[in-house]
């Protein structure tokens, strides 16, 4: 009977509503904290959804559930710096309006019934969890010039609200072929790169004017899009600007100077040309998958619009001092996707270890660095006391194709078991 009640509570999601109170001690594994060197035979203690101890000589609290991790590897949850998983293909972009800053990706986010089990509760993004992804930035796609506001979510939780980490997290912008091609096909603007930048400049100027008018006239009619741009112009949130080739990256950097906004370059295949400026100003770059370097919603983009893929880029940028993350840019469920999902992020990033990056640098590029770029490194990205208890246990070295994610904890709760 108690078992039935437990099952019932679990099914109702009640079990997971309360913060994890029984401590969990993960003991004996090779701990990769990201914030410091690997700890062979390390112990990690989780309590109340947070990491409360990590190290080689950590005592196991009384009453703790002990997880034997001997022979295993223990690392922080992977952070996917851009993904569209959980947004229906038809919800990724507005087809008629190139700029919709009022749109919030969060309000398209609908993982119910599409994440493997089909059961409504609790939320499990299996596609990410099987690859150890526990946090991701979700955004509108690149068929619009300015798709709207992105959000940062966890891949598991009791309810939609419980998985939310930060919203809005950024204003999502795309330069280059994808928005242009869609607009051209519909015989509207922006049909050229010139029009793309001009339209962005115009809407940002409008945003500045709206801010000014709002200050002098508090009863001014509210404009939700302009309010969102205000957050960008006040540097409360950055702009994520998808820019692959040099022309588009240069435009993104110019907008950054002109409007004094924070900018994160998404895609960045041509970023090497700007390494000095990017490094000096600590402008982050979020690269796509190493095996699939251009970032685009086109199934087969025209090569002339993208730089030649270069697997060395992540290592070169990192070593030049540019904050560089590797992300999936994963398409939505059911779409014909050119690249993989969170499931493959570690394996794909492993390629970079053959191209001038240490394994430690590669692992950071999918954990701590994206957490810092997303502005949530106080909560995720490394195994440090006080951070969220997002932990992945693997049966081998994280970057080997033979390795499987065995267990994933999010906020101290076991949310995935292979």
């Amino acid at each position, binding site marked *: 009977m108690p078992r039935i009640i437990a099952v019932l509570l679990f099914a109702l999601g009640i079990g997971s509503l309360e913060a994890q109170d029984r401590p969990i001690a993960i003991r004996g594994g090779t701990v990769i904290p990201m914030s410091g060197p690997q700890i062979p035979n390390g112990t990690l203690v989780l309590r109340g959804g947070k990491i409360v101890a990590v190290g080689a000589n950590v005592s196991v609290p009384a009453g703790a559930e002990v997880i034997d991790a001997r022979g295993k590897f223990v690392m922080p949850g992977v952070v996917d710096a851009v993904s569209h*998983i959980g947004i229906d293909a038809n919800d990724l972009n507005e087809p008629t309006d190139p700029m919709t800053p009022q749109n919030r990706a969060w309000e398209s986010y609908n993982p119910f019934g*599409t994440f*493997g089990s089909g059961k409504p509760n609790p939320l499990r993004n*299996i*596609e990410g969890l*099987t690859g150890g992804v526990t946090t991701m930035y979700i955004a509108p796609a690149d068929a619009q010039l300015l798709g709207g506001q992105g959000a940062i979510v966890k891949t598991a939780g009791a309810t939609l609200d419980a998985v939310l980490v930060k919203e809005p997290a950024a204003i999502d912008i795309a330069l280059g072929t994808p928005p242009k091609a869609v607009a051209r096909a519909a015989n509207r603007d922006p049909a050229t790169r010139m029009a793309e930048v001009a339209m962005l400049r115009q809407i940002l100027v409008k945003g500045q004017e709206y801010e000014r008018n709002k200050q002098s006239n508090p009863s001014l009619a509210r404009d939700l899009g302009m309010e969102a741009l205000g957050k960008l112009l006040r540097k409360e949130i950055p702009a994520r600007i998808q820019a692959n080739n040099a022309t588009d990256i240069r435009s993104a950097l110019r907008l950054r100077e002109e409007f004094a906004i924070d900018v994160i370059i998404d895609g960045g295949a041509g970023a090497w040309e700007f390494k000095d400026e990017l490094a000096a100003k600590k402008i982050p770059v979020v690269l796509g998958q190493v*095996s*699939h*370097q251009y970032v685009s919603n086109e*199934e*087969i*983009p*025209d*090569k002339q619009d993208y730089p*030649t*893929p270069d697997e060395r880029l992540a290592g070169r940028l990192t070593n030049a001092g540019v904050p560089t993350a590797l992300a999936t840019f*994963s*398409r*939505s*469920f*059911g*779409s*014909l*996707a*050119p*690249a*993989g*999902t969170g499931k*493959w992020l570690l*394996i*794909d*990033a*492993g*390629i970079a*270890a*053959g*191209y001038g990056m240490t*394994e430690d640098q590669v692992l950071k590029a999918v954990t701590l660095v994206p957490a810092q770029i997303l502005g949530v490194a106080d909560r995720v990205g490394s195994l440090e006391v006080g951070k969220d208890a997002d932990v992945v246990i693997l049966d081998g070295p994280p*970057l*080997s*194709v*033979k390795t*499987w994610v065995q267990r994933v904890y999010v906020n101290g709760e076991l949310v995935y078991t292979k």
Partner: protein
Amino acid sequence: MHPARLLLVAAAIGLTHSASAQTDEAILVRGAIIHTAAGAPIPNGAVLVRGGKIAALGTNVTAPAGARIIEAAGKVVIPGMIDNHSHIGARPTDLNDTPMLIGPQHRFIDALDWNDPDFADAVSGGVTTIVTGPGSGENVSGMAAVIKTFGTDYSKRMLLEKGGMKFAMGVKGRTRYPATTMGVAANLRQYLIKTQEYVAAQKKWEDDGKKGNPPARDLGYEAMSDVLAKRTYVRSHVHSATDVMTLVRLKDEFGFDLTLHHSTEAYKVAPELAKRGISAVVLPLGPRIGLGEDAMAGPYILWKAGVKVAMHTDAPVINQKWLRLCAALAMRYGIPEEEALKMVTRNAAEIARVGDRAGSIEVGKDADLVILDGAWYEPKSRVDVVIGDGQVIYERAKEAK
């Protein structure tokens, strides 16, 4: 094989080919573990190539005088890989002649740019032979080509001009017939019947002593008649199990040879494929978002059922140089290492009907080899050297750092 006999074979091969080979330089790769795709791996093995062919293989192969020696201790040697399904070498706008729903008369070589930089990219990843063909925008989109990815002599690069007839199931019109799965099947069946009638009319004219003018030629039916006569075979893009079974029915009705491509749900009907000898070419990454682990284990289920499986990139959808990782993902779901390797070498070559020349390291086959600095399936391993037709065609050491 006894070393002395190996040398004899080596000499024979060398003699046979010395007249036609571009250079006579023999290359001996030694000290590596050699995965031949035709038997157990050979630790500390050596392979001698000469005249474009594999001349000797074993643990005790002697270099002939003047041979270049590649010391490969600690390295891994595998056959030059074969990508059984890609669209390399043509502009994206040349892949699909979408207004024509059934266009078997199209030949991919008519759109092929032999100098496309994608070929060099493929070589750098150890891919030496590919099937490249039209896209999936039509129900029948034309004839694929089987080519080598390297070399300046196009006639030598071409292995098969009739490299399989591309079908695509699940491709439906929105504003014209056929707009349903039923319609696609009916339309294909009708075309195949018309091909039979076309062939019969030709035959009748011949049987009647070729009197009068021959029947008017139709290049579409003519091309499809190659399929019905098994001079080539059907390569069909297919995702759903429903469409797989439609193809199986068409095969049973018309008797053509069939391979499935992408094959997303083929695992659900694996026994039906195994008993008919239908092979499956699988794309591990692309269109699988959200399908879950059952579908990811599809290649394993197919292999277990006895279906011949190859893994493919669909390049440029996935960059061709990462073909080896497509096989690695199959391995991850339970296929043994040597069997997984076959899925991008021997099986891929046999399905492409070039198994007599490519796909394994065996004496007499084309000398296409890849030397890696670590396990072929690990992401961080790098391709160090690629040998194609017996010559070094890629050296990582000569690449820009």
